[in-house]
């Protein structure tokens, strides 16, 4: 599998560390309540299809990247820097 790092270009998957669903970027307020935090830390859509997840270019430039890809075909549709993807 190859992922395009916005800085380094297309690189082998081995250079990247995988974190998981990009919901990790939407950290709730401390007082958002049990449900919000359960949704944030634990519950997942886990789609069979297009998903957005977080990768760290650990063996490369050190950027955290949001990758839009298909979990069934492994097609990579889009990559962007986490620092810019954050709404």
């Amino acid at each position: 599998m190859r992922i395009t790092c916005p800085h380094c270009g297309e690189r082998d998957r081995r250079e990247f560390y995988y974190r998981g669903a990009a919901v990790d970027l939407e950290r709730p307020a401390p007082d958002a309540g049990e449900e919000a935090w359960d949704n944030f830390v634990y519950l997942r859509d886990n789609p069979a299809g297009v998903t957005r997840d977080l990768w760290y270019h650990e063996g490369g430039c050190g950027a955290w990247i949001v990758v839009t890809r298909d979990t069934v075909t492994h097609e990579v549709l889009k990559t962007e820097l986490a620092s810019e993807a954050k709404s």
Partner: protein
Amino acid sequence: MRINGKGLIDRSKPVPFVFDGISYSGFEGDTLASALLANEQRLMGRSFKYHRPRGVLTAGSEEPNALMTVGSGPTQEPNVRATMQEIYPGLEARSQNRWPSLNFDLLSLNDLAAPFLGAGFYYKTFMWPKSFWEKVYEPAIRRAAGLGALSGRDNTDKYESAYAFCDLLVIGAGPAGLMAALTAGRAGADVILADESNRMGGRLLAETYEIDGKPGNVWADEVLAELKSMDNVRLMTRTTVAGAYDQGTFAAVERVLHHTERRPNGAPLETYWRIVAKRSVLAAGALERPVAFRDNDRPGIMTAGAVRAYLNRWGVSAGRNVTIFGNTDDIHRTARDLLDAGVHVAAVIDSRHDAPLSKDYQVLRGAQVCGSSGRKGLESITVRRPSGEERIHTDCLAMTGGWNPSVHLTCHMNGRPTWRRDIEAFVPTPGSVPGMSIAGACNGSFSTSACLREGIAAAGEALEGLGLTAPDIALPVAEDASYEITQLWAVPGKGRAWLDFQNDVTVKDVKQAATENFRSVEHMKRYTTQGMATDQGKNSNVAALAILADATGRGIPETGTTTFRPPYSPIAIGAYGAGAEGEGFKPQRFTTSHKASVARNAPMIEAGLWYRPSYFPKTGETTWRESCDREVKQVRDAVGVCDVSTLGKIDIQGPDAGKFLDFVYTNMFSTLKVGRVRYGLMLREDGYVMDDGTTARLGENHYLMTTTTAAAGEVMKHLEFVHQGLCPDLDVSFTSVTEQWAQFAVAGPKSRELLSGLLDQTLDDESWPFMACGQVEVLGVKGRLFRISFSGEHAYEIAVPARYGASLFDILIERAEALGGGLYGMEALNVLRIEKGFITHAEIHGRTTAYDIGMGRMVSQKKDCIGKTMSERPGLEEAGRERLVGLKPIGESRQLLAGAHLYNEEAEPVRTSDQGYITSVCYSPTLETMIGLAFLADGPDREGEVVKMVDHLRGVTTLCEVVNPVFFDPEGGRVRG
């Protein structure tokens, strides 16, 4: 039998080799199989289950029968395909899976028991008595099963892995592949052409076709010459492209030295390639299908294509009196080739009623071979015709049931092939592998002309995708015969007709599976083991599922097919894992004091890729405990020196550095004074402790964080995530400086004395109180000093640029020893920190919270921080949790063991009464007793209670008193010293 004037072997270069202890001779260019056939050695192996005598079936890597062991000793290679192994002087091969010999194999008795060993028989028996499975049945089955044997010794052959990149990868160098490579090469594309054979040309080497009026192999050599001359084209022979992966990544294995005895030192036997290609052309050709009929597995019965290959490529006739059987015009091509070579053709049996007749040889139309005889080599076949059955004497039967396109790679990414009725075969479904175009026989186009044409077209498709323009290239003139086939899977009749030769799966087995309702093709495969042999069903899957389809009254498309998975042909574990043997497994990290520690005979232990000294034995000390106790005492009484460079150090700078640290640590750092150090606790977002360490404030916007050795990388990743992902607006940056500094702990009442004179300033409690830090000059070199302690003693950590580490270490040792102190290692460090109740990853092992380790109060209520909210979940704070305590043995047994569990004094030591467990123990020379840290249910509330430590594994029970985890100097007076 060798045929004069035929073949592409070099008859001027005879090659001696040995098979089963007998010397034979072949020629350069021969494979083990062709050379043995030339010597009329038909018996080459034994089947897996019934140990039936077997000869070679094919001429390629799909060979299921002629598997041999090459070499002996540490480099012994089992399961080598005789059809792929090139011979070389000194080659020694042995037959497999037979005892005592290939000719006489005792386990061939299994063949007589065949009626009881049918599909899935073992699921129905061997159940009584229960204990017999492991003791009797399984060992017997295991001994009988298996093919070749590993040497049992460490493999001393070298393997290598490498990466290659290209615009276009062309897989297979037959007519289609050559044409594709030529077209792309002329267009200027960056091309890799890979072929599993030692010589490129594919079927052109095995047939007598002409292209542009030249023999096919001559034409191929001309194309190859042009390709060689292009520096944008890379030819990879003896290279099997074995797997297709995501985004144009392919796995391939190059057999670099299997064809020679020459093994220069350091030279790889095989190279495992990861090829990254923007586009690919699959031109992998097709594999011929055997026909199932009674006893179709005898030595001397092989595919017609193999017979032609041995004749045309290797100048060998597989027999002296050949019969040919099949359902396509290939059988007539085979007859013509043999006759031209002067080989007698006894009969051609064509299952097609409208088969062409010939004046040169006898054609039996609408006839089928329904049996054979000859235990260890074919003697005769029985032919069934409308007029009745007749026996024909023959020593070789060339058979064909048609061809299967090599769709394998197109299935590796879950693509499913498409059934084509007109050729009775599966072809690749377009788009199965993104960026891959299919050309030639593997696309179901079997004529030479079609292969050439599709090669050009596939290359054109790829070039378009690459944004290159295809050159005008003339289609070479070649035969364009149509492919007429009638179904011929299995000849009806009694007896056993083989499908999967190696696994001994017969037509009966497949039918029985259907009867027992293993109707799904996957069920049939798994129940009968059809297609699970070393050829992965290349020779038999399609026929087997045709028979299943028939038995279940479905068509082949509805029946579907099993999935082909990587690798296309087997790859040595050593190739995939090249470079990782021994030290290559993971990087080694050495401190600047490593050599000095080793010189002092310190056993070095692995710690997060680093190596650290366990203890420093002095002459006269016979156990590690003696050394450890001495080192501890030296620290408590005088001064000790320890290399702590392996701890992670992260330089944190920026206007928002303090704010950021407040967010990642549970406690406050924005309030820390410049020139001071503070202990910090870090949580994961789930509320559990992630890591701890001290962080120093070197300037207004400048901090230096230390992490544990093990978690350094994880913490850096975490900081970057929190910054980039959660608060990118903060102006702060991180730089790992772990490697920049050599840092040494100097601990003990005499630590200040040791350092005096080394520094450009004097150390007093005014300017250097506990937890102070700052710049210092160390013997004229800019360094750093931290007054921190992991031992509870008056201590410092002194840091200099790494280039001076070794030198400073020597100086520190000298000074320490002069003061009655010395070095201390991990063992002593561990004792010192346990005596003080300091935690390591033995305690913060991922399941503990700040509350559990008695640091609940360190989670500041004034601010938010990573992990705070989730750490407040009811389950993480409520009564009953196992929390950190100290333990002291009382009563008879004084032994404590880490990993032992805790129970109430009177309770049964069973799970349901478990109260906790011990994480760290040591003998404290300071307190002259064993002490331990443990997690105990509601521990801190139980100080003074007695609990029972039970270690079932080591048979130790010890009564312990629950105490505060800080065993030594609880007031902390010494550290301020």
